[in-house]
């Protein structure tokens, strides 16, 4: 059964690759990237084998813990868990759940991230090639750590999906996930004040008794001859593994007979934004987008990072001049404006409503943009002004505002063109927000990189002027120039973006629709 599931996953991956050249490119790039990471990691492990025992122990424990924690938390934050083998698909077959779990866990390692993690974790044993006993211990403990990472990741996403079917719970969750990031700034600041190496050792000692770090500390215990400690850590890891498997099993048992159903939250009162905005096609598009910004959690998720960015920049700032915090305006401008690059993809096949109506591409572009700008523009202006006034030199407000507006307008322009050209699979509304779409990440990352590069190039003149204006003793005229150039250049890019993107959409609309139909 396990072998069958692994074979099924391989078949699904191969068929997916056969369907689209883009995915082949994606997996090749991902593999190259992963191979590069692996070379660095394994090289690091070899180098580490010549270091002092304490350094070896601290490094392996912390690295291993980060890998496990990454598997547990990253799916919650960004990519989602690979859903090639959706357990719900097996619900009509007579397969024992335990067998299904084991098969899914093994199949989860099949794939680029899984293989890289497997090789990386096994390579930690290389550190102890001087001590045969420790080497063997490392080779035995690493698979336990890998199993802990994979099982924990599945347990967390399956359990959380059930909780997060409720909208209120998802909002709370967003806060909970954001919290570590909020603490990251103060924590980094704290570290910079302390003697780091002493601290890392202490942290590693604590982490080594948690499920995150226990498997990785076993070999060094063997080297030191602390057999009781080694045994204890193996026990910690195994108990945690059993716990994760139990949690996954319970959550899956529930999910199999209660498929995720998002409670959309029922009813609207009257026409909402449709009644307040002008009764034109443009007004209707704006009203529809605004309604979705409020009602569709996929949009809200794209804004979660905004407060995180602001707070992190605020706390990471080394001095008390507030200079780094000045970046909050431009950074948030990019994040908010870039959000509309996924707009058509978020529509999915519902995009036909625009196609079937006599709506010009420019109306579509302008509508989506205005909806986003209705809150994006005030937010960015407030941030730019606020961070400037709170910094050591309030007069920087002029160039900072210029750069922020430049980034906002330029990003809107570029995103308007990009989303008329590229769509990629995204979660459907109401789907488990922690499931990633096959082939989604690479296509999206590729287009995102190209688009972001365009934004950087187009904003460069404004950015140069703004940086010059921020230097001590720069004449105020430079700041004013940054503002003027930022707004004017941004406006030109915006107008061109809407025009070009609209014309492109008139041409590509049916093709985008067809691509999105093929995703489902």
């Amino acid at each position, binding site marked *: 059964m396990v072998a069958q599931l692994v074979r099924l996953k391989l078949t699904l991956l191969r068929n997916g690759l056969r369907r689209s050249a883009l995915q082949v490119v994606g997996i090749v790039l991902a593999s190259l990237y992963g191979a590069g990471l692996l070379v660095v990691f394994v090289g690091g492990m070899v180098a580490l084998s010549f270091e002092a025992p304490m350094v070896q122990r601290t490094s392996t424990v912390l690295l291993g813990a980060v890998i496990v924690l990454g598997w547990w938390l990253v799916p919650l934050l960004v990519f989602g868990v690979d859903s090639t083998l959706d357990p719900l698909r097996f619900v009509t077959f007579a397969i024992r759940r335990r067998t299904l779990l084991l098969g899914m866990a093994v199949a989860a390692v099949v794939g680029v991230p899984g293989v890289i993690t497997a090789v990386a974790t096994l390579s930690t044993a290389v550190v102890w090639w001087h001590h045969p006993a420790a080497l063997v211990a490392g080779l035995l403990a690493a698979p336990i750590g890998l199993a802990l990472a994979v099982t924990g990741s599945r347990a967390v996403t399956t359990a959380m999906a059930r909780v997060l079917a409720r909208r209120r719970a998802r909002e709370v969750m967003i806060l909970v996930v954001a919290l570590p990031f909020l603490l990251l700034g103060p924590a980094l600041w704290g570290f910079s004040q302390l003697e780091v190496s002493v601290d890392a050792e202490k942290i590693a000692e604590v982490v080594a008794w948690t499920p995150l770090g226990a498997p990785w500390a076993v070999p060094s215990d063997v080297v030191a001859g602390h057999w009781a400690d080694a045994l204890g850590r193996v026990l910690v890891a195994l108990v945690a593994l059993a716990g994760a498997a139990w949690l996954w099993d319970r959550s899956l048992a529930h999910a199999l007979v209660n498929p995720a159903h998002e409670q959309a939250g029922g009813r609207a009162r009257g026409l909402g934004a*449709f009644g307040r905005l002008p009764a034109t096609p443009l007004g209707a598009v704006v009203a529809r987008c605004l309604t979705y910004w409020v009602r569709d959690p996929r949009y809200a998720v794209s804004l979660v990072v905004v407060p995180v960015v602001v707070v992190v920049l605020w706390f990471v700032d080394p001095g008390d001049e507030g200079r780094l915090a000045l970046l909050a305006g431009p950074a948030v401008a990019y994040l908010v404006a870039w959000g509309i690059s996924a707009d058509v993809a978020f529509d999915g096949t519902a995009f036909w409503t625009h*196609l079937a109506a006599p709506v010009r591409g420019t109306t579509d572009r302008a509508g989506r943009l205005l909806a986003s700008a209705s809150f994006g523009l005030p937010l960015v202006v407030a941030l730019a002004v606020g961070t400037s006034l709170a910094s050591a030199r309030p007069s920087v407000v002029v160039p900072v505002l210029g750069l922020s507006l430049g980034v906002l307008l330029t990003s809107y322009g570029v995103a308007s063109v990009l989303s008329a050209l590229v769509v990629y699979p995204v979660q459907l509304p109401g789907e488990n927000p922690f499931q990633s779409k096959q082939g989604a990440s690479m296509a999206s990352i590729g287009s995102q990189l190209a688009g972001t590069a365009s934004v950087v190039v187009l904003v460069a003149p404004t950015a140069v002027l703004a940086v010059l204006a921020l230097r001590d003793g720069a004449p105020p005229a430079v700041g004013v120039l940054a503002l003027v150039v930022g707004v004017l250049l941004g406006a030109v890019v915006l107008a061109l973006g809407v025009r070009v993107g609209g014309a492109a959409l008139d041409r590509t609309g049916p093709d985008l629709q067809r691509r999105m139909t093929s995703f489902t």
Partner: protein
Amino acid sequence: MQEHPTAPGPGVDAGVDPTLAARVPTAPAAPDAAPAALEVRGLWRRFGAKVAVAGVDLVVPPGSFYGLVGPNGAGKTTTLSMATGLLRPDAGTVLVRGHDLWADPVRVKGMLGVLPDGVRLFDRLSGEQLITYAGLLQGLDRETVAARTADLLGALDLVADRNTLVVDYSAGMTKKIALACALVHAPRVLVLDEPFEAVDPVSAANIREILAAFVAGGGTVIVSSHVMDLVQRMCDHVAVIAGGRVLAAGTVDEVRAGRSLEERFVELVGGRVSGEGLAWLRSSSD
């Protein structure tokens, strides 16, 4: 030869409820010697190696109730998507009342009312908002949209659910709200892909009445369906399509040639297999 029937075709439910008919926006009567409501010439479309539509020609006379029937995978949805601007044909032309759809989509799309199959709606909107959205996108003014939305919600028995989000609608209600979106701008030609799928019998009868009234008012309706019986009763014209080609087209009476449409369809399409091969399935009954 194009027909121009002034009365509902054979088999359409007699005695259309006049109040219902009056509440639903209908297309104005077609002018004399009008071009075909929809004319499709040499339509081709392939997906990868598979040719989904291989040279489809159709002429839908104005004022007709036109059925498009065919087995699964025959190319019905692909043909209708290309005829309504949702999918670009590899070759061929689509004329709506004499205007080339793909040459001037924005102008022609206003004449069409479209209900596609197998696609999502903007289902985070309430029913009322969704119809309003469709109406405003068509360029109607606020008062017209509001009045027609109220009429359509009434005619389709959705008044009680006007404020419910479409995502919480049942499959049948979703079909009905999509139909309302297709009707709100009083199109000249309605193109409906499987409008009766998942719709309960009462709602289906309501929808048939609305469509019959629409045709009686001079509009043209094109529906695709698997249900031969329904097409035979409801439509005056029919085209049988299979393997991406039109096998027969004309008035229903011409196509069925004295037999039932279902018999004629099976004869044209072929592919009946007897169930005797599955002998082992019988043992499961005891």
